[in-house]
């Protein structure tokens, strides 16, 4: 899927009040071609603050008083901060159920609690499950304002979901245990790392582990279309004893049981405080030979109890506060380029982010490529790696 630069030409200003009623269904800031086009470079900030999100939406959301969220761990891409900023800004409660659940659990919850007051209003799922939600008709299409500043690769063309953030696969090294930090997949094969390398779960279940295998595929001559080299790489790593069988949890990282972890860049900053308290130094490096990015999809759930609060939540994720929250958490927000252009991102904020040179021009695998990779993985991971 070719990467196209997001359109910087114009930002369509919505004629808010008149379209508010229809807008609640089509998206508060959705626009038609006949809307007035104004280029608003200089006064962008003040115009955005006034119109986006629409005052009607905010009021309706406040009237609802709550948005039911699900599977958003505090330490994942700084959701703790993003949830707090939403509560502070709008005063709407956003309880998170089952924070450690999987995308499949989110789907189960939406289906079993359909029509009930605790049905999830908005979800955050892996790309594969975004397709599942689509196939089952569970998305409520909604385009938040600032939709146009989101790159094509990070949103659904029909407006069903948006990828508010993405991250890169990175090697996290506990430098208290490991003195020489590996910087590439090739380096991980070194005998000095025997028993030290861990995947964050089984790739057939964990999105992060799946991404690690894809990244390894790229590093070993494969591509989005060919995940087999990645599987073979890990088979080799297991055979040489470098691949540890230990499970990765916050506790195992702190205890040093899993000193070299393959996980998303946005999963590391959340652990920083606890690591420091325990006297552990940690370093995050994106492998030089396999740069792989992955996103998660967020959207409003159809027929959920708090539609407006949910739409406001999606808006919040895309907005500046949300985006800056993600940056602190080590994730690259969807509107990163726009924010940088507007000068809102300072160098201190970027400490948790990977080198922008790596993320410029990032490509993501298409739904078909992911589906094919999963087939190969399901068939081959067991026989080649797990069962050995």
């Amino acid at each position, binding site marked *: 899927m070719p990467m196209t630069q997001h359109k910087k030409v114009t930002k369509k200003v919505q004629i808010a009040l008149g379209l508010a009623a229809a807008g609640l269904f089509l998206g508060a800031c959705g626009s038609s071609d006949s809307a007035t086009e104004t280029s608003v470079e200089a006064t962008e900030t003040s115009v955005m603050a006034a119109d986006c999100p629409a005052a009607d939406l905010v009021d309706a959301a406040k009237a609802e008083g709550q948005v039911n969220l*699900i599977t958003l*761990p*505090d*330490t*994942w891409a700084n959701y*703790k901060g993003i949830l707090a900023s939403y509560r502070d800004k709008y005063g709407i409660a956003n309880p998170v*159920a*089952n*924070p*450690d*659940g999987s995308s499949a*659990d989110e789907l*189960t*919850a939406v*289906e*079993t*609690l*359909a*029509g*009930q*007051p*605790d049905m*999830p209003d908005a979800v955050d799922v892996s790309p594969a499950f975004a397709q599942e939600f689509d196939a089952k008709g569970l998305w409520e299409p909604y385009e938040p304002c600032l939709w146009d500043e989101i790159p094509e690769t990070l949103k659904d063309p029909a407006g069903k979901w948006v990828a508010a953030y993405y991250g890169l696969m990175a090697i996290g090294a506990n430098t*208290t*245990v490991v003195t020489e930090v590996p910087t590439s997949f090739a380096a991980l094969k070194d005998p000095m790392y025997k028993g030290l390398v861990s995947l964050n779960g089984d790739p057939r279940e964990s999105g992060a582990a799946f991404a690690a295998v894809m990244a390894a595929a790229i590093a070993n001559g494969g591509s989005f279309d060919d995940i087999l080299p990645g599987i073979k790489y890990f088979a080799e790593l297991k055979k040489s004893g470098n691949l540890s069988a230990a499970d990765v*949890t*916050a*506790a195992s990282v*702190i*205890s*040093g049981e899993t000193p070299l972890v393959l996980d998303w860049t946005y999963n590391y900053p*959340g652990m920083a405080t*606890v690591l420091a*308290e*325990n*006297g*552990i130094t940690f370093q995050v490096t994106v492998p030089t030979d396999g740069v792989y990015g992955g996103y998660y999809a967020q959207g409003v759930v159809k027929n959920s109890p708090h539609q407006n609060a949910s739409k406001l939540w999606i808006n919040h994720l895309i907005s500046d506060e949300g985006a800056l929250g993600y940056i602190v958490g080590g994730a690259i927000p969807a509107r990163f380029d726009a924010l940088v252009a507007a000068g809102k991102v300072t160098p201190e904020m970027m400490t948790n982010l990977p080198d922008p040179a790596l993320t410029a021009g990032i490509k993501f695998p298409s739904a078909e490529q992911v589906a094919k990779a999963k087939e190969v993985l399901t068939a081959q991971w067991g026989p080649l790696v797990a069962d050995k």
Partner: protein
Amino acid sequence: MKRNNAWAKFLLLVVGAFYTLPMLAMARFSFQKVPVIKLGWSTLLKNWTIGPMIDAVTSARFLEAGWLSVRLAFLSVLLSLLILVPTTVYVHVRFMRARAFVELLSILPFVVPPIALVVGISSAMRSTIPSFLSSPFSLVPFYVVIALPFSFRSLDVGLSSIDLKTLVEASRSLGAGWMRTVSSVILPNIKTGVVSASFLTFAVVLGEFTIASLLLKFTLPAYLAEAQGNNPQGTFTVGLLLIVVSALLLGVMNRITRGKSQIVSTIGI
């Protein structure tokens, strides 16, 4: 008559060590903020703190989750006993032929994955009582089902190990009606089984995670899972605290309930 119980003491010592040592290692990890790699004589006494534990135990979330779990546990034990005690007594006394059938049913919950239970039951509930799954107490029947293998087995073993036939014949021949026989003769003799069943059910409920998380209920294991990412050390201390407190509580309850039955069972026939 004195028997040499040295082997018993030795065995219990070994098993006791097996039970306690891992918990001690986890406690060390949770209370001391020093990684093992840096642990040595000089650092042995450094950085011990109960801060994370205090944080975890005093948090409103913990208390909310704990309270729900305790209520669910009591209700599940109640419902379990209500359904199972009459059934098992009836089967053993009157209808042994059904025992295999009941046993098979009691083993089934092990191998039906929790997700299948949730999805299966929700599809049935949606057409009949859709709001059922919203209530946190909807977990009670699920819990009775998943505790079934343990609770049934305890009651079954309890009933099998008393000489039921003789007791019933004796009681009936002395003129007692069925109700009297059951309440005064059978039930006191299966007290150990009932107690085992209750304790196991209680513990199952306190530890069950999957069903509660799928139905988005905030129980104690859900709290522990939630707090794990932020504060793993604190969460483990809470876990340890729960283990110690539960074990003590159950031990005390065992002491209280055992008093009576002991007298009856030592009168051998």
